[in-house]
């Protein structure tokens, strides 16, 4: 099955935009240039439309945090029974028919990285899904173990001081993490070791096979993470990074990946009091590479992802980086940039067509392609906001 998108303003993200054509065949982008003469099974006249790579949400809880239903029975976000639950996987808690997936596809988000929540210093393993609702759940998985979720700051304190008083302070959060790392290293050295799921998961992080993504808002939490990770000779990647602007130079110097957001919630927790829309721009200027923006859906709705980019852009982030922060940068952050995140030949045909520019919040997504197939069409299914 081949599809030709004709005469669109094509935004490859990794290079300058141009008016031209894009050819999809067998789920991949096979050509993308000013004029394509090849015939295709289907041709879409995209005159006046904008063509972007499908957006990538690097941090959300769609499916694990069940929506539009009873919260307690369908909420599988946090396995709060213990501060260290490295062995659990978001994959096993995701409701594949959750309405959030539809919201995402209607918003033009074609890849979703779903993490366990932030109640635990070591919360479990995330999963990356292609948001193709036409195929069965297992076939949507593109990275079964996409990242190791950790958390600092208020959330572990709150969750575990209520549940059995296992953590009362930030000091204990750090201690739990250190102890868990040490335990895994001891396990590794044992000559005879009965298989231990938890230690095996943590070992992957220590050996660099699985990237740790650490929920941290305050600058002091960020620095604590760097201190602990230095001790074990590994490198973290940050989620939320709310006070990243206060330690931007340190993050740049160490070449740390940062995911920033959600930017639009009320400052109801102390640790987000210093949140500002300027953070992404400040990080960029300090030299932090591959800045990623996240909605943390359902914390803010997933269709706010391009709006975050637009407002970050208005507040100092370059336009180029703003576009990258919701497409190729999250792909790099997840180690999937060889497959997704930009309109380049041989990449997966995850494409959206919009009537206005993506960074104009009033744009409509007319088509969402996932793996070369139309996964959402506004004409067929109606507008999804």
């Amino acid at each position: 099955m081949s599809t030709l998108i004709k005469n669109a303003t094509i935004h490859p993200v990794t290079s300058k935009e141009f008016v031209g054509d894009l050819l999809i065949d067998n789920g991949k982008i096979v050509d993308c240039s000013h004029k394509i003469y090849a015939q295709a099974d289907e041709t879409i006249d995209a005159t006046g439309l904008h063509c972007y790579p499908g957006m990538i949400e690097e941090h959300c809880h769609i499916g694990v945090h069940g929506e539009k239903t009873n919260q307690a029975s369908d909420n599988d976000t946090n396995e709060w029974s213990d501060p260290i639950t490295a062995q659990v996987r978001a994959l096993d808690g995701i409701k594949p028919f959750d309405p959030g997936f539809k919201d995402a596809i209607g918003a033009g988000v074609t890849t979703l990285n779903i993490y366990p929540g932030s109640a635990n210093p070591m919360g479990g393993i995330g999963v990356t899904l292609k948001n193709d609702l036409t195929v069965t759940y297992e076939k949507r998985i593109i990275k079964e173990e996409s990242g190791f979720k950790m958390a600092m700051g208020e959330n572990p304190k709150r969750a575990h001081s209520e549940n059995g008083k296992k953590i009362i302070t930030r000091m204990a959060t750090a201690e739990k993490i250190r102890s868990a790392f040490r335990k895994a290293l001891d396990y590794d050295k044992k000559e005879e070791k009965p298989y231990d799921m938890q230690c095996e998961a943590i070992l992957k992080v220590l050996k660099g096979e699985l990237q740790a993504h650490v929920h941290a808002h305050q600058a002091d939490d960020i620095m604590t993470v760097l201190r602990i990770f230095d001790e074990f000779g590994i490198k973290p990647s940050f989620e939320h990074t709310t006070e990243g602007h206060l330690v931007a130079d340190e993050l740049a110097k160490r070449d740390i990946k940062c995911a920033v957001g959600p930017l639009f919630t009320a400052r109801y927790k102390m640790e987000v009091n210093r949140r500002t829309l300027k953070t992404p721009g400040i990080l960029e200027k300090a030299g932090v590479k591959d800045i990623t923006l996240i909605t943390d859906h359902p914390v803010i709705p997933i269709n706010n992802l391009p709006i975050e980019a637009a407002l970050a852009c208005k507040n100092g982030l370059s336009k180029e980086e703003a576009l990258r922060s919701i497409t190729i940068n999250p792909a790099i952050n997840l180690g999937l940039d060889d497959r997704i995140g930009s309109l380049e030949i041989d990449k997966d045909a995850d494409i959206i067509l919009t009537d206005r520019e993506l960074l104009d919040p009033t744009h409509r997504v007319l088509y969402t392609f996932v793996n070369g197939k139309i996964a959402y069409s506004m004409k067929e299914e109606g507008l999804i906001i």
Partner: protein
Amino acid sequence: MRTLITNVVVHTMTSEPFKGEVLIENGVIKEAGYKVKNSEKIDETIDGKGGMLMPGFIDAHSHIGLNPDGQGYEYDDVNEYSDPVTSNVRSLDGFTPTDISIPEAAKGGVMIYCVLTGSANPVGGLSFIAKYSKKKNVKEMLIREDNGLKMATGENPKRVYSEQKKMPVTRMGTAAVIRKFFFDAKNYIEKVKKAEKEGKPFTEHDSKMEAAVMVLNKQIPARVHCHRAEDILTAIRIKKEFDIDMVIEHCTEYIKVKDEIKEAGIPILLGPIMSSRSKVELRDMTFNSYRVALEEGILFGCMSDHPVFPSEVLRLQAGMACNYGADEAGMLKSLTIMPAKILGIDDEYGSIEEGKKANLCLWNGHPFDARSKTIWNSVDGFLEV
């Protein structure tokens, strides 16, 4: 002892129904046909008066005798709440043969049941198969011990253990508990092998692990309680990871994942559907599941979950399925030969064929009609009215 049943419509479950006779010798079906050939030395002749002769129904998922009707706490032995993993407990050890529901079930044609532990625990306990007996003792009733290991996913384990503040409090946690159980069992197998190799006596027997080893060796299936699609998919994922045999119990959202179930070749037990949607995970419960299961041609049984839905009226649930378009003959099979196959007792039970046990019910009308009743029942050829 030779008994001849005459003047009946024989529903064999393996061929088309016919009007004829059935000869029983010492509790085993000797012959079934329009006119039995070997009609000498008959000790007893029963005139069926044109009624329908069927195999006794098999309720492959029941808690009959574990929580006898009308009894209180002292008689409630369904769930061993003390730990999320209780593979060392056996439903047989809590079975109360004086449960008033047992003769009632027989009146409703249910002569065989698989009695499972409850669904509070990710790993419940071992089940057994019993048949009706007037003698009200376990020894008489027992068909097979330890025929499956009950497991559970979804709301129930979450609810129970979030109250106890133990893992699991999420679906992710439930999957992790089950995985850990099997990994521990693999470690256990290694330990046993090592002792063997070294010629030392093995002194660390663990009855929880012994049950797990039976599942890993495919001696018995895992009987996994799943309602929601995500729970079913998680169960299938675990089946593949550990290469075990599995039966999905309840399977409330079967239709949503019918392709995956077919592909995995897992038998399912559907029901109880004739009940209220008392939990969130039952929201999409529908009688259509039976029709679709028949259309898909998968191996399934219609089950009661007694006392959730009384075993005595299991036949009416199957009748309701016909109301939703399910094939009548197919639904009869879902009460007889198909559950027999799922339980692995189809060599002796589940159909009217030469050599099988004479587990029979004579009905004065169609069992799907509430006004019909059994006028003669037999288990292994002994008259049990």
